[in-house]
């Protein structure tokens, strides 16, 4: 592992290193995310979901590839665009749907919603609606790991936009200084709302700037599940061995608007169509897996069907669930006596 700028790696897609079982797990995760996002988009249009939705569609390979390497007791922290991270980390999908619909049984009792989706049982420390809010917190999770002598790692997911926030930079420096098992995973989907990363990120790229902080940094094609997995394998291992933090910049497409309902006037002509055709990580993974005989189309179709009906089920359950009791307004403001 090198910290020389020249060696920021962009591993080539190759299925080697991933077992069939792992692949199927990742594929299932990716499909679950995609279907989940499509379903809540539909339910949002129907008026069944309050508030704001930022969908992860197009970025699935990143969460799925990384989380293959994590256990329940590793930590991730997320952003406003958090559904994919939560699902990949093993979050309770039914509880997520209920949460997003503001229902009883929601993972956050209906108090969080999409922008605060979290599953603490699975080490998912929450979506965070403050851009740059997460990295300092994951540094703390990584500090716990180090202080308590576990080999856990902490991953802060962030967007290209979040890479410019002061809190993110501080977190990176502190993680280097304390040599913590923290991974800063920037999903560069090209946009922070309607501002392009090429405008807002003043440096050559996110990875080289991170490298300047004194940690290894890599770029990876985030549409390529296998490439993500291969890189993350090294990176997670590096962290577990106590060698300090690492940054990953994964390039991904954003299939949807910044938020559901975004008119996206800032997009180029035909851009989204092209992205969906050429950069769909699910299609890319499926093709590569079938070609390399890691799985056959039938198996994958079966997963697709199974998940479609699973998502339908959790949706029906969430639609049917009651809203939180009105008397819950003042519960859980404090953890202890007040």
């Amino acid at each position, binding site marked *: 592992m090198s910290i020389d700028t020249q060696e920021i790696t962009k591993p080539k897609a190759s299925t080697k290193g991933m077992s069939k079982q792992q692949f199927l797990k990742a594929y299932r995760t990716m499909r679950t995310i995609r279907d989940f996002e499509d379903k809540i988009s539909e339910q949002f249009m129907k008026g069944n979901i*309050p*508030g*704001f939705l930022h969908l992860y569609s197009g970025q699935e390979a990143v969460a799925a590839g990384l989380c293959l390497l994590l256990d329940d007791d590793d930590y991730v922290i997320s952003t406003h665009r958090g559904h994919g991270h939560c699902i990949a980390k093993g979050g309770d999908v039914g509880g997520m749907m209920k949460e997003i619909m*503001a*229902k009883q049984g929601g993972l*956050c009792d*209906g*108090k*969080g*919603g999409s*922008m*605060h989706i979290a599953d603490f049982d699975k080490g998912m420390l929450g979506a*965070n*609606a*403050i*851009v*740059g*809010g997460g990295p300092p917190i994951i540094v703390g999770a990584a500090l716990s790991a180090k202080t308590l002598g576990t080999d856990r790692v902490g991953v802060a997911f962030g967007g290209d*936009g*979040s890479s*410019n*926030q*002061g*809190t993110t930079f501080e977190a990176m420096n502190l993680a280097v200084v304390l040599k913590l098992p923290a991974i800063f995973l920037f999903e560069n989907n090209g*946009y*922070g*709302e*309607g*501002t*392009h*990363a*090429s*405008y*807002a*990120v*003043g440096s050559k790229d996110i990875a080289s700037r991170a490298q300047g902080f004194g940690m290894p940094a890599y770029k990876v094609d985030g549409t390529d599940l296998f490439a993500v997995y291969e890189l993350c394998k090294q990176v997670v291992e590096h962290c577990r061995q106590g060698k300090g933090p690492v940054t990953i910049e994964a390039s991904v497409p954003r299939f949807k608007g910044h938020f559901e309902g975004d*008119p*996206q*006037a*800032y*997009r*180029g*002509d035909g*851009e989204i169509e092209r992205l969906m055709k050429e950069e769909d990580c699910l299609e890319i993974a499926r093709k590569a897996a079938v070609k390399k005989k890691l799985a056959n189309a039938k198996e994958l179709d079966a997963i697709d069907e199974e998940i479609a009906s699973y998502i339908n089920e959790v949706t029906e359950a969430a639609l049917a669930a009651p*809203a*939180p009791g*009105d008397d*819950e*307004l*003042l519960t859980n*403001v404090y953890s202890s006596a007040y």
Partner: protein
Amino acid sequence: MPVKTYREAINEALHQAMAEDSSVIVLGEEVSGGAGCDGSRDAYGGVMGVTKGLLPTYGESRVIDTPITESAIIGAAAGAAQTGLRPVAELMFMDFFGVCFDQIYNQAAKFHYMFGGKAKCPMVIRCTTGAGWRAGAQHSQNLTQMVTMVPGLKVVCPTNAYDAKGLMLQAIQDDDCVIFVEDKILYDTSCEVPDEMYTVPFGEAKYYREGSDLTIVAISNPMHKVLAVADRLEAEGITCDVIDPRTTSPLDEEAILESVEMTGRLVVVDEMTPRCGMASDISSIVAEKAFGSLRAPIKKVTAAHSPVPFAPNLEDAWIPQEADIEAAVRQVLEYAS
């Protein structure tokens, strides 16, 4: 007179100020939108559409899209304000004070005093507030008290389109750092707004209603609920002074005290959490300065002491509602002194 929305009124004020004074600039995240993209520029004109059309008219040197970097946005505005410009910086949500608050309360607010009057900081920080959008705990807060408490800042919270335009034009020509709080819920409300430029002075309350039984003071959007309640009460023959301070700093104490001296009863309404909020502030001023006139306890109607919950039923319970206001008013009226 033409009718305009609150959004349009602020937009018009910005247009006119920029046309009149070339030192006025606008900066922030997505203030035009589309920077560096293949599609159209001015794609958003601010996520709330308030700065729409400024970029095409005044160009990139005066309408400046920034990365997500609130401390640098506010700091840059403060530095620009000290060196010849009149920046209007946008903070997308007031909830984001936390990532730039030093530049607001320790820097911009203090320059003039700390440097013995030699520095000026003529800048405006536009920010949005207000619950009800199901936007959760970090995108719904009204933190007007957090800036009102800071000496050196001025704080403006218009409740209608007319005031919004006049207060914005005043804010831009003011030589201090002005926090301009736009209530999201009000953007689509409208009223008559002159096409010409005009200013509404700071520190002059507006009487929405005049009456004699009770004084109600409200900050931001809750004012409209107060008006609904006041109108219902009027049908019963109960009349209220309904006062909108319009600026919480400076605060038109006199208007409030005068009214309470007459009515002897006060209810203060805001959408902040209850501790150390505007309702506390105004209540305490009256309890000190108009005590002799008071004939009943001063009631505060505020949001609940909790983060803003996401679920609509919980959020609605969190927000002070007409029923809460009416109940408070009746309690105060019924109090036998």
